[in-house]
């Protein structure tokens, strides 16, 4: 058994081993070249990071990753990784990346307040150098706020706001001197005085109090007080809290309340009362009236809020897209901004999330029906004359006390009939104290821009 391998055989084996080795080497070289080629191809497909505080809930994130970004990648070949984070995380991360000089994020999606803070520290690129975005018009109001600290700090991305909804029946009872057109376009004749006369007329002709507000415990009526009435009557949310103009405002609200459906103090959202016909004119957040309009798009119109002695006060929630200084790939980020502000993309976002488009052209792109009614209304408000935009102050844990002060004033003055001056004088120091304690700046319009 020892001589199983003859010398010839062993020579044959060594030959086949040599061939095998050569084959393996050749295969390895081919694989190596192939991998190198593949890897270099990979590097050619650009990949960027988009950090956002908006669209973070799982459902919305799935929509962003599964629909928006895959579509974007197909169009441009740019791969985007979407990173959702909280407001405080965003500030911390951008600050540390900017201070270390090693920026990994190419695009930021955040609310106006946060972006303002970043711009004030010089962390954001001036976007005006990228030129314009063709085929879309941003309302002046939004562009005005996007210019921060001497640069175009962000491109308006999505908005949310509070509007009025009118049942078309109510137009039959318009007071003298006010037309349907005035209301729908938000002309200067559509004033708070006109609203009072309209509500009074409705009450006198139908016997019902058909104006309603979400003044229940979970309702957003407090936003109407500090972000709508106060700016419209006093030009500020906080500064003129107990001024003569404010007294006039509260007296107006007392008078108006005679024609407001008393059940308002139990309502948290206006969709239901509108659908049940308990009110014909209502004010609420767009998300909380959406249901009514989706169910009966032909019955309701979304209209801008009325104008007061100082202007048309309204709250605007704006999310913007910004590029940090030293971003790894600003060009790719700009392409993503271009994609996200396209009217067709904006309509998709509205359908899935309830955030409103920031470009006028979106209203013609939306399918007829509920969405179009909503977009038209919000757009009309954004483009109506004499705006006084109010931003919700960022008071953190004290934001509850902020609301509580306005609600207490409403309860004591309007519902319980106490003397406005006395109530306001008592509450004003508490209100100022909130800003002092937290160090938060007064919000627009108090602070100017």
């Amino acid at each position: 058994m020892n001589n199983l391998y003859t010398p010839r055989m062993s020579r044959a084996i060594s030959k086949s081993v040599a061939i095998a080795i050569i084959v393996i080497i050749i295969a390895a070289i081919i694989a190596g070249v192939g991998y190198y080629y593949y890897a270099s191809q990979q590097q050619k497909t650009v990949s960027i990071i988009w950090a956002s505080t908006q669209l973070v809930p799982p459902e919305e994130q799935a929509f962003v990753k599964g629909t928006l970004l895959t579509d974007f990648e197909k169009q441009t070949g740019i791969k985007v990784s979407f990173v959702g984070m909280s407001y405080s995380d965003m500030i911390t991360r951008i600050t540390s990346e900017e201070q270390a000089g090693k920026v990994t994020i190419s695009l930021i999606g955040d609310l106006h307040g946060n972006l303002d803070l970043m711009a004030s520290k010089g962390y954001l690129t001036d976007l005006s150098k990228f030129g314009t975005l063709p085929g879309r018009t941003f309302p002046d109001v939004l562009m005005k706020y996007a210019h921060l600290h001497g640069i175009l700090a962000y491109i308006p991305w999505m908005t949310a706001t509070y509007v009025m909804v009118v049942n078309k029946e109510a137009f039959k009872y318009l007071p003298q001197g006010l037309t349907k057109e005035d209301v729908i376009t938000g002309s200067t004749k559509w004033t708070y005085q006109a609203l009072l006369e309209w509500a009074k007329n409705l009450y006198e002709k139908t016997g019902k109090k058909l104006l309603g507000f979400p003044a229940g415990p979970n309702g957003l009526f407090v936003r109407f007080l500090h972000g709508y009435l106060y700016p419209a009557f006093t030009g500020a949310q906080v500064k003129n809290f107990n001024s003569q103009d404010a007294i006039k405002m509260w007296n107006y609200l007392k008078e108006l309340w005679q024609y407001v459906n008393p059940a308002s103090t139990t309502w948290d959202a206006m969709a239901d009362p509108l659908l049940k016909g308990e009110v014909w004119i209502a004010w609420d957040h767009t998300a909380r009236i959406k249901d009514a309009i989706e169910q009966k798009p032909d019955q309701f119109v979304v209209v801008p809020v009325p104008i007061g002695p100082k202007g048309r006060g309204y709250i605007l929630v704006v999310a913007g897209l910004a590029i940090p200084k030293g971003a790894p790939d600003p060009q790719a980020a700009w392409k993503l901004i271009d994609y996200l502000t396209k009217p067709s993309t904006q309509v998709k976002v509205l359908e899935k999330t309830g955030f409103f488009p920031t470009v006028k052209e979106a209203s013609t792109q939306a399918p007829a029906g509920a969405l179009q009614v909503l977009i038209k209304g919000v757009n009309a408000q954004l483009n109506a004359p004499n705006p006084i935009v109010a931003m919700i102050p960022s008071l953190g844990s004290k934001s509850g006390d902020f609301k509580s002060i306005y609600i207490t004033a409403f309860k004591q003055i309007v519902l319980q009939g106490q003397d406005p001056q006395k109530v306001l004088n008592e509450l004003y120091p508490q209100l100022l104290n909130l800003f002092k304690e937290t160090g938060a700046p007064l919000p627009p319009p108090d602070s100017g821009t």
Partner: protein
Amino acid sequence: MSSNKQGYSLVERYLPYLLIAPALGYLLFFIGYPLTQGVLLAFTDQNGHFTLQHVYYLLYSPSSNFWPALEDTLALAAAIIPIQIMLALGFSLMLSANFKGKDMALYILIIPLTISDVAGGLIWYSLLTANGFFNKLFMALGIINQPIQFFGYQFRPMEFIAIVLAEVWRATALVFVIIFAGLQMISKEYIEAAEVFGAGTWTKLRHIIFPMLKPSVQTALLIRTLFAFQVFGVVMVLAGRDIPVLAGEAYYEQTILYHYGVAALYALIIAAISVVIGYIYIKMFKAQYLREVTM
């Protein structure tokens, strides 16, 4: 052998503790821990220092609704509970008689028990609202020509009535079930014996049924009163904060105003009131006949 015996007695001595250990652990974890946290929340500030600021806010701040909430919670309990006990007693006596369709009636009476308080509130809201069922019905019948307003701050007395209606409708079934069960347990022999001695209906009720129902009534009262201090969903739906109640204020302070300490204080107050009421009821209703029987 002796060590064995000792071991046995050791087991015997510690076994009970071992057996109640899981229950004790459960209590500590799910009641003891949250209770401690609640007390800490109520009496410390953000930095963890002892403070009475939440108590001051609760009692004296113009934004706090504590006193009206306490008043309204007590008023609601005082209005609702007697009605429920009476109704439940009445229904129980009625249903202990034999008649056709008795089972059906029983089931129908119990239906509201299966409906959550918020849903119950919504049902009554749509029945009583200005465009609701009752107003439309009465207007169509010509009984009224203006809808009756039930809701809104200006109509608080009506809101109070609406809450009482909704609560009576929704939760009487619970009281009824307890009292009805108690009634079923009273042995027929007592009643038959009484009849032999010529007792009339009132005498039977007064001297046999009521005394023997005491434990059931006590249970029903206890459960109902404790629930009355937690009343929340129905009030929130029907009256918002127009009629403040303790549990509602706790919720509001917690979720809308972010006053976690004040919310914890409300929770502790509700707990304290519940303990006191439970104690009073147990003292008040010592079931006499049961004691005599067991003695």
